[in-house]
C-alpha cells in the first residue's frame, strides 16, 4: 500500500545527487552549452527523476521530498529546453546596431496604430485650437502657464536674452538632460498605458493634442506665428512624432493584450513593443539636445528663417528614415526566397 520511502530514497538518492551536480556545473558555466555526453546524461537523469516525482506525487506521502524533486525536475527542464544566448552573442555590436533598422521596420509594420495615434492627437489639436479661437475664457483653463497665455512678453524677454544667468552652455546642458528624462518618462507612460486597453494612451495623446492646438492658435492669433514655429519646430519635429510613436506602441500593446492567450506569441510580439520604445527614446534624446541647445536661441542670434529651415530639414530626414530604412516588405522577401528555392 505504501511506498517504502526509506528504501526508495536510498535507492534513488545517488541519481538525484548526480543530477544536482550536473545542474550546478551547467548553471555555473557562462555559456551553458552541453556536450553530447552531458546532454545524454542530463536527458536520462531528467527522465528518471521525473518518474521518481510521479511516484511520490501519487503516494502524496512526503511533501518535502516532493518539493525537492519538483525543484530538481524544474531546473533540469529549464536546462534541457532552453538555450540562452551566449555571452558573445549578447555583446555583439551588430546585434545592438540592428535597432536602427528594426525600429523603422517595426514602425511600418504597425503603422495602423500610428495612424490611430495621429487621429486622436489631431482631434485634440482641433478642439484646443477651436476653443482658444472662439472661447477666450477657455484660455485660462487650457494654458495655465503665464508664458503660454501671453506670448508677447515671453517673446520680448527671450529675444533680449534676459532669461539667461549662468554660463549658457552649461544651463543648456542641464536643461537638455531634464527634457530628455521628462519626455522619455511621459512617452514610456503613454506606451505602457496600453495595458488599460489603450484608454490611458488615448487620453494622454488627446490632452497633448489639446495643449498643442491651443498654443499654436494663441501664438498665431497674437502675431507671433513665426516665432512659435522657429521656437518649436527644431525639436518639435522629433518630439511630437516620438509621442505619437509612443501612442502607437501603447495601442499595439492594447491590441496584443486583447487577443486570447493562446493566440499570442508573447516573446516575439513583446519585442516589437520594445523596439518601438527604444526607437522613440533615441528620438527624444535628439529632441532634448535640439530643444536645449538650438531652439532656445532667438532672432538676433539665429534668424527665424534658418531655424524653420532646420526644422523642416529634420522632418524630411526623419520621414525618409522611418519610411525607407530597413527591409521594405519582409513578407515579399520571404515569398521571393521560397519561390527561388522551389526552382
Amino acid at each position, binding site marked *: 500500500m505504501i511506498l517504502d520511502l*526509506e528504501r526508495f530514497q536510498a535507492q534513488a*538518492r545517488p541519481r538525484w545527487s548526480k543530477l544536482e551536480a550536473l545542474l550546478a556545473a551547467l548553471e555555473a558555466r557562462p555559456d551553458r552549452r552541453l556536450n553530447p555526453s552531458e546532454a545524454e546524461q542530463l536527458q536520462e537523469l531528467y527522465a528518471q527523476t521525473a518518474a521518481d516525482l510521479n511516484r511520490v506525487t501519487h503516494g*502524496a506521502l512526503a511533501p518535502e521530498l516532493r518539493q525537492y524533486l519538483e525543484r530538481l525536475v524544474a531546473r533540469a527542464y*529549464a536546462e534541457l529546453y532552453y538555450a*540562452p544566448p551566449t555571452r558573445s552573442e549578447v555583446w555583439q555590436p551588430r546585434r545592438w546596431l540592428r535597432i536602427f533598422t528594426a525600429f523603422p521596420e517595426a514602425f511600418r509594420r504597425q503603422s495602423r496604430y500610428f495612424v490611430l495615434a495621429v487621429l486622436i492627437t489631431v482631434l485634440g489639436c482641433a478642439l484646443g485650437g477651436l476653443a482658444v479661437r472662439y472661447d477666450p475664457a477657455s484660455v485660462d483653463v487650457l494654458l495655465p502657464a503665464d508664458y503660454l497665455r501671453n506670448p508677447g512678453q515671453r517673446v520680448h524677454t527671450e529675444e533680449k536674452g534676459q532669461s539667461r544667468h549662468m554660463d549658457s552652455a552649461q544651463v543648456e*546642458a542641464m536643461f537638455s538632460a531634464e527634457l530628455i528624462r521628462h519626455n522619455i518618462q511621459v512617452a514610456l507612460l503613454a506606451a505602457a498605458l496600453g495595458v488599460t486597453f489603450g484608454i490611458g494612451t488615448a487620453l494622454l495623446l488627446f490632452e497633448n493634442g489639446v495643449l498643442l492646438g491651443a498654443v499654436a492658435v494663441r501664438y498665431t492669433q497674437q502675431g507671433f506665428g513665426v516665432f512659435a514655429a522657429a521656437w518649436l519646430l527644431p525639436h518639435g519635429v522629433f518630439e511630437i512624432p516620438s509621442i505619437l510613436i509612443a501612442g502607437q506602441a501603447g495601442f499595439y500593446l492594447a491590441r496584443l493584450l486583447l487577443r486570447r492567450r493562446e493566440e499570442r506569441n508573447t516573446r516575439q510580439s*513583446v519585442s516589437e513593443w520594445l523596439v518601438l520604445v527604444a526607437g522613440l527614446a533615441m528620438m527624444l534624446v535628439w529632441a532634448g539636445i535640439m530643444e536645449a541647445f538650438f531652439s532656445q536661441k532667438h532672432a538676433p542670434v539665429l534668424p527665424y528663417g534658418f531655424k524653420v529651415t532646420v526644422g523642416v530639414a529634420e522632418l524630411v530626414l526623419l520621414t525618409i528614415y522611418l519610411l525607407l530604412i530597413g527591409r521594405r516588405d519582409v513578407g515579399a522577401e520571404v515569398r521571393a526566397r521560397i519561390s527561388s528555392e522551389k526552382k
Partner: protein
Amino acid sequence: MTDSQLTRLPATAELTIATPEGVLFRLPLAGPALRLYAVLLDSVIVLGAVNGVGYLVYWIFAKAPGFGLMLITLAEFAIGFLYGAVLEGLWNGQTVGKRLFHLRVIDQSGLPLLIEQAWVRNLMRVFDALPFAYLVGGVSVLSSRLMQRFGDRVAGTLVVRETPLGAPAQEAWTRQKYNSFMNYPVLAMRLRRAATPELASLIQDALRRRNELAPYARREIYRELAGYLQTEIAPFPDDLVEMLSDEQYLTNAAGVLFGDQHLSRPHR
C-alpha cells in the same frame, strides 16, 4: 479525514507546468510582500549607485557643474531602468534583491526569461509604480492568479520562490533503534494493511509538526490519534501500550508504516 485534506491544500499560489513528456511539476509563486522587500533592497542599491556616480561626477566636473548635473540627471534615469533589466537579463532573472530573497523571474512556460522580456517588464515599472509605492502593481499581483504585475502580464513572465532545498533528512522514526511494535508482527502487518494513505500522512504530519503545536494541542491530538489506532486498527497488548506515551505510540506506528519492511525479524 476531511480536516487533514484541508490542511494539505497549498497555502500559496503556484504554477503547474506540464512538460511535453507528461511530467507535472509545481513552482511556488512569490507573494507581493516578498517582492516588495526585494524591490526595496534593490532601490537602496540603485540609490547608492546613483549617489556614488553623483559624487564622482561632481568631483570630475567641479569646474563645470552644469555638465555634471546633466550627466547625473541622465545617469540617474538610466541606472533606474538598466539595473533591473540588465541584471535580470544576465543573471537568469535575478537582481541582488531577488537573489537575497530567493526570488527569480521566469517565463510563463517555466523556462528562463529572455533579455527582451527582462527589458519589457522593467520598462513597464513606470506604470506599475503608479501612483506611489507600486500600488498599481500590487493590486495587479493580488488580483492575478499567477501573481503578475502589469509588467509581468505584458512580458509573459512571473516571479517564483526558490528556497534552496536539500533532499529531506531522515525522519525521527527511521532512526529508532528499537521498535517494540515489531515484536508483534501480526498486529504490525494489520496496521500496515489497514491504514489508508491519508491516515498514514496524518500520523506523519502530526509527528513532524511536533514543535509547531502548542503543548496542550499536541497532547490532545496525539491522544486522539493513538486512541483511534489502538481501538479501530490494531489493538496492541495493553501491557505494552500502558508503558508507551501517546507520542511514542505514534512514533512506533510511523516506524511500522514507513520504515523497514522486515517484520518477520526474530525476537531479540
